[in-house]
């Protein structure tokens, strides 16, 4: 099979790549572009470890083909921080110890940022349902939810939530 030439934007930069038609965006990110921050946990859209933001919408990159990225705007975990300045959600994950093995963390960081792009005032329930597509096996989600609620509070300009 011959490869397709794709032009897209990833983390704000123009990117070109060649890919086979059956390759997913996740395959391309990891194996062609060396952006290994997005992880493969299931390749069937059930675990969220491959979460990226496409044109402002949270998606599983394992459910999008590489060829479908043509002309779109993709944000991966590598694009969440600005240079060496971490996004509030990244800082709060560290402060609250909201990660153990860290494998689900990139997906959760992206998904949490997408939530906070939608609303800076989620309830705990809204945060839990938003993040229900990101599986974590280590933490039981407790510290993750606390970190997300605290990041929201900081971004609202309030004092640190409990």
């Amino acid at each position, binding site marked *: 099979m011959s490869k397709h030439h794709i032009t897209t934007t990833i983390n704000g930069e123009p990117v070109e790549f060649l890919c086979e038609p059956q390759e997913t965006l996740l395959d391309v990110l990891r194996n062609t572009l060396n952006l290994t921050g997005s992880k493969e946990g299931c390749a069937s859209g059930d675990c969220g470890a491959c979460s990226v933001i496409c044109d402002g919408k949270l998606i599983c990159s394992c459910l999008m083909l590489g060829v479908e990225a043509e002309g779109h705007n993709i944000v991966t975990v590598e694009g969440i921080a600005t240079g060496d300045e971490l996004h509030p959600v990244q800082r709060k994950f560290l*402060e609250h*110890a909201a990660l153990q093995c860290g494998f689900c963390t990139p997906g959760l960081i992206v998904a949490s940022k997408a939530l906070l792009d939608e609303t800076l005032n989620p309830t705990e329930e809204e945060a*839990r349902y938003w*993040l229900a597509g990101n599986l974590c096996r280590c*933490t039981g989600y407790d510290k993750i939810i606390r970190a997300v609620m605290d990041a929201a509070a900081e971004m609202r300009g309030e004092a640190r939530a409990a």
Partner: protein
Amino acid sequence: MNYIVSKPELKVVGTRPVRPDGVDKVTGRATFGADMVLPGMLWGKVKRSPHAHARIVKIDTSKAEKLPGVKAVITAGDLPNIASEEAFVGEGPMNFRDLSRNCIARDKVLYEGHAVAAVAAISQAVADQALDLIDVQYEVLPHVIDVEEAMKPDAPNLHDDLFTANVEPKPTKPSNISKRVYFAKGDIEAGFRDADVVVEGRYTTAPVHQAYIEPHACLVAVAADGQAQVYSSSQGQFMVRAYCAKLLGWDISNIRAVPLEIGGGFGGKTLVYLEPLALALAQKSGRPVKMQMTREEVFRASGPTSGSVIEVRIGAKRDGTIVAAKEVLKYQAGAFPGSPIGPGCMCGFAMYDLPNVEVIGYDVVSNRPKVAAYRAPGAPMSSFAVESALDDLARKLGMDPVTLREKNGAHDGTKTHYGPTHREIGFLQTLAAAKNSEHWKMPLKPGQGRGIACGFWFNIGGESSGAVHINEDGTATVVSGNPDIGGSRASMAMMAAEVLCLPVEKVRPVVGDTTSIGFSHMTGGSRVTFATGMAVTQAAERVVEQLKQRAAQIWEISPEAVDWRDGNAYPAGSNAGAFEPLSLAEIALRAGKTGGPISSEVSINAQGAGPGFGVHICDVEVDRETGAVTILRYTAVQDVGKAIHPSYVEGQIQGGAAQGIGWALNEEYIYDAQGRMENPGFLDYRVPVASDLPLIEAIMVEVPNPRHPFGARGVGEVPIIPPMAAVGNAIRDAIGIRLTDLPMSPPKVRAALDAEALPQAAE
């Protein structure tokens, strides 16, 4: 030195610094098994059996070998044929013949998903095509999955040479029961005769998987002279090295195993699946080989834990004193012997002071993947049964369930039913903390139910090495050999920093590969903070001794006249001399002149790990229409000895509880009539998601373990043990029905509610 006794105010241990590997993890920079690349690498893939039980008649790999882009194909013949050999390598006895045959089948396939061949090719797509070109002829055999079915004398036998051990007379006919285990204390018959009240129960649990989010992955390279590198995610790089050396017949010194970050293990990565195959392919092809499992392969071909059938019988006096306790456990081992039946038999009653006990256990093979360890292996199933029965007992006696447990609770000096006497344990303190918790005191609303359950785990110590190196600028590096699955490298840095009297940011921890640090047993068994922490602490103490000696040289006094505190050397009293304190940095700068690099590596076999106890409280609401159970509130109380880094101790408690809740409510292996797994994916193998759980309160009780310098006990495994019975007891409280079959999923709850609606005999 024992810091709990001698140093009342700890500056670092017990605080919550940001973990040193954290920034890499939140930015996606951390390197996990599948993230590694090497120039020229090939992709490896595995051909797997579609049958649950079959003889391999013929494997024809010729067409696959000819496919352009395929560089190597292997079958079992490419690995040495190992005679049955039990050896203690790593945490437990491992039969290398069985491990080899589990990695790649020889003569027979024993479960759907069993590996029969592997290929290495220039791309994943070509490798997949090559698998389709491998022609395997099978003679399908009858299979057996269910544990009691497998125990029947006429069940299809998996192994012609497996005879039940520990039964008299010695059997002559092969069996699927690999061994019988027996523990007894006192006189069980007399105990039951003496009882006023007896409760009984039969409990069944489905096999569940550790379900780490990261599938198994590795990248290996073998040079022409046989020296090999293995980059993999595992719970122990020394285990990877040893097992690969054994399975391939290579010298251990020819393998360098590098631990990459690991995306969850929980016991499931305490052995090898892909690495020996990748090494054989790399050797044959002359190129590096990368392999990773798909999620489906993880479920079909890597070890879940045992499903079980457990019968419990408990007898007590009117006043709640338990006088007799009997448990019969049947555990599935999967395709090869080795279920955690021993610990299962030991843990169920371990937290109680009982005069008469009998426990019988059976390890049974059946046509499903070989089981692997899963967080406190064997204990969760046993405690589901015992803690549910105790709940029934409390109800029958009209007694509060906590009071029943307090009355019979183990304490310092209690003799267990499996023999050893408990010393300095924290069970009663943990029960007291549960009873005094906000949760326990909070009243329930109508329709809600509350359950409480307990758990015990031994925790282990074992071989560990730790090194502390002082850098030329007075900062320090700590090297240890245990993959960090829960934040342990932060704890290593904290303990070293405490001893050196340095701020924790000046002490950077590293997890070394097999060439960079002395031998360490795997990460597991709740041992790292205890054993590796002990090694690191001792190394730091030896470094402090060296620092004092160097200061003594500089001051020209005796080393006994030097004190070390706040990161400085001080003359010990005015007699020693009026010297200005020397900082660590100042001493480090002159290390070369005073004798050379300041460094210490300690290798130990840590003994005396203290056991842990957990008590969990769970509130539920049951939707009678759908059978769905909502966890309203959950509190997990545990004695942790001393929380070195409290956030990560809480994390272990919360994470273990969440896994236990999944085990209780939704997780199970579902098989079809051909013995194939029907739900090998996260959609239908339902682990808890964020919206399934409330915040989980972790209450840490600190009863220090006197055998660890900072009083630490292992904490990782205990929290998965109580949840199933805590949830089951809460459901019993909410709807008046005792569920005895895990998982307690909506269809089962509904079926139980429907059955209750029919006319039935009184309870």
